[in-house]
């Protein structure tokens, strides 16, 4: 019989993917509150703070509580009236009353009493409240989730993605360590907590096992998605908070929440290797995972088409060839750096930036070589035999024009 899981916050960044993955594994899912858009799961009307109808738990074995009321944080802060505090306990009691054996609470790696942001303090307070429940042991587990990336650009991943589009960024907390983990890995970890025997711990850390500084993480995001570098300028925390306040008052400027800034400034890593291993997760290298994200793919496809066009000397209309080259470039670490923007747009410009020595080790030369390999699998181009001499002359002349630029470029990059 398939296991039935109850999920709150199912329309969120993590929730939507989790429901999808749970159902792929053959679990039945009932949603409390709003269902993921476009999904046909059973949704039971519910709001945080209410006790759900008992029928919602019928036949279920575990509850995952992902929902979080941000408005209540703003309104009440860490005061006991915060709906997240009371609501979680009501939900947990209801689940227990319905005879469920597992309650998984989605917490955060910033959950600690001394957290700078309200979010971390509240999550910690909820964890503590759940811990002292008389039936807590072996039934309640708090999943402390790290910095989640991947999948659709929502929640804080949307913000990170937006930041990664910028060539330069003044930022706070650049030296704080974060623990990035892919959305799919988080979902698998949460599912493991619900479906498998308990680990015997009240709090389990589902976060990247190798902490990286926030600055390094932003650079990784930018490099993987856009193939470019990022200039980061450290900003003192006070200045950043003043900026947040200012952003609220200025029209046409996106508002930046103090909460986010404080969350970053207070980030500190938690050891996660044991928990991740116990959950049976093997974490992907974020760089590799990110290079499969949609913007990264789109960029590669555009570059692939440009390289093929340059090498073949004509527009290549075979989508198969373009995709094959993009695939080869994606798995080739030497081609992580993006082409100059203008060269993607006007491939003929590649002649001016091509490395002088045609060694296939260099990034661009390597990609051009791959492109040439793909181009020769295409049907042969008709060439006028009579004009061979003219064609050679034209090419030699163009080379002569381009050569000084390439020399200058080599001198600049050396």
């Amino acid at each position, binding site marked *: 019989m398939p296991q039935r899981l109850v999920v709150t916050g199912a329309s969120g960044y993590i929730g939507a993917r989790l429901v999808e993955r749970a159902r792929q594994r053959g679990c039945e899912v009932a949603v409390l509150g709003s269902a993921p858009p476009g999904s046909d799961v059973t949704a039971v009307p519910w709001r945080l703070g209410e006790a759900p109808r008992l029928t919602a738990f019928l036949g279920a074995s575990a509850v995952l509580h992902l929902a979080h009321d941000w408005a209540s944080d703003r309104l009440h802060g860490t005061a006991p009236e915060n709906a997240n505090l009371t609501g979680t306990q009501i939900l947990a009691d209801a689940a227990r009353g319905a005879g469920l054996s597992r309650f998984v609470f989605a917490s955060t790696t910033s959950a600690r009493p001394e957290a700078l942001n309200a979010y971390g303090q509240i999550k910690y307070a909820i964890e503590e409240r759940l811990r002292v429940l008389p039936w807590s042991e072996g039934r309640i587990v708090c999943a402390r989730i790290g910095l989640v990336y991947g999948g659709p650009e929502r929640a804080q991943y949307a913000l990170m993605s937006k930041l990664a589009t910028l060539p330069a960024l003044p930022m706070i907390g650049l030296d704080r360590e974060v623990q990035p983990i892919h959305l799919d890995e988080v979902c698998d970890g949460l599912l493991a907590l619900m479906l498998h025997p308990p680990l015997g711990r009240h709090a389990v850390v589902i976060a990247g096992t190798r902490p990286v500084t926030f600055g390094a993480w932003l650079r990784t995001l930018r490099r993987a998605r856009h193939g470019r570098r990022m200039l980061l300028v450290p900003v003192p925390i006070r200045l950043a908070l003043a900026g947040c306040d200012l952003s609220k008052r200025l029209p046409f400027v996106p508002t930046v929440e103090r909460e986010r800034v404080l969350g970053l400034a207070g980030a500190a890593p938690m050891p996660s290797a044991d928990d991740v291993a116990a959950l049976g997760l093997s974490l992907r290298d974020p760089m590799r995972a990110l290079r499969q994200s949609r913007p990264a793919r789109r960029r590669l496809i555009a570059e692939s088409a440009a390289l093929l066009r340059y090498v073949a*000397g004509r527009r290549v209309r075979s989508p198969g060839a373009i995709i*094959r080259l993009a695939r080869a470039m994606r798995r*080739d670490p030497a081609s992580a750096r993006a082409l100059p923007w203008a060269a993607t747009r006007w491939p003929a410009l590649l002649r001016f930036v091509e490395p002088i020595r045609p060694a296939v080790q260099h990034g661009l030369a390597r990609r051009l070589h791959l492109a*040439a390999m793909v181009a*020769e699998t295409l049907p042969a181009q008709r060439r006028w035999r009579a004009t061979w001499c003219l064609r050679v002359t034209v090419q*030699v002349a163009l080379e002569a024009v381009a050569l000084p630029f390439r020399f200058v470029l080599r001198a600049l990059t050396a």
Partner: protein
Amino acid sequence: MSDPAADIVVIGSGPAGVSAALPLVEAGRRVVMIDGGRNRDASAGSPWHRMLGAHLEALRPDDGLSPKLRTPEARRLLGAFHGREPIEAEDFLAIGALGRGGLSRIWGAFVCELQDDDLQGWPLTAYDLRQSYDAVVARIGVSGSHDDDMAAFYGYSDALQMPPPLGPTAAAIFKRYSAARPDPEFALGRARNALITENRWQRQSCDLRLGCLWGCERGAIYDARQDIALLRQYANFELRDVTARRLVRADGGWDVITTRGDRLHAPRLVVAAGTLGSLRLVAPLLGPALELRVLNSPVMAVPLLVPGRLGGKLPDAGHSLAQLGFRLACSTKPGDYVSGAIYEVAGLPPSSFAARMPLGRRAATEIFHALAPALAIATVYFPGRYSANTVTLRPSAQADQAPDIEVRGAVAPEFDEVARTARERLARIWRRLGARPLPGAAFATAGTDAHLGGLFPMGLAAPHGTNNYGELHAAPGLHLVDGSALPTIPSKFTTLTIMANADRIGRYLAELA
């Protein structure tokens, strides 16, 4: 635990393995052959499938030197070999194949015999190999010519088939040569390839479709898998899909321990895993630390431009194996010559050439296409005595493991001078034949030629030497029948000789009680 099901276990299903196995099987000996793997054939499908591989395994940057090594088939075979206990190599390309048919799946198919002059330093004469040469040539199917200047050099086998037509560029060079011999010490003639031009058992003749490099669907080019089909007709032959990991002396014979952990027992072993593959297997039997030599043929590729062909048409029919073969005597000493082959570029991938041209990609590709009808490539092979590669065996860091193997590539001190002289003389000859050597001539990294040998030389008295029948002095009952047992590597292509030598040893073992 032991498996006494065979009189002889043959390790390796390449040209040497099958050549040694055939006389044994024909004589009624029970033979078990083991080889490294399944038969994944990728020659079918759309062009990109054949050229890049279904999983794009061949869409990786290569050094652009040898188009032969960049095909999906080559990457799979060589990759599988490398995947197992890699051989450390410096200035050397450690080529070995793990898979049914071995390197014959990607070879250049040039075949020629060694004469007495070439066999100096061997405990054999051409007479000892005569019967085997004939048998192998008759079996694998060879096309070539008996009436040009190279015929005697390549050997007079009776069973030659008609050569395929020459490509236009090669024909232009050959015509000039036939009209006026440019140098008394230089000879040029039709290449001799293991390419059939008449149908035979389970194989179709060459249909001149130019796709040779990417695998011949018709089986026109010899490939040891064709002989495996022949061997499988015999009830006393068995082929097993396991890789040998270790050889252990046991019960007056040998146990082959496979990577799966099972044992195969036989009174005698025939090791034909390819020179470096055999080295891997035999190294643990030679003691913990040892320095050996390995010979290769230093090889140079020279692009030639035949101006008379500029503006001509690139042929749309033909083959991309060698068109012509040549020889240039270096001195009056017997056996002191360089030899090589001339290829046309139709059917070869332009990117491999464009990568080596001192131009941008676009210009290089366009110019290559414009010049292609007039281009030919000459490969020049130098005798193995000019190679000075060393193989070092070191005890492994982990106990009970095979020793670590390190190959270091080098050439003899006099080689630069020899190469320069040969290159200059050949350049003069090319010009007289109406061809201009283009800049961009290059020596391949040692080992790229895959003409390896001299590791366990026949006739050498040292423990790592072998007797006339490839039997290792340090390991009686173990016969090396591949390139590793050749005492010298001449400038000629050695595959046919390796096969003939394996056949000879096979015949000898068949007669043993």
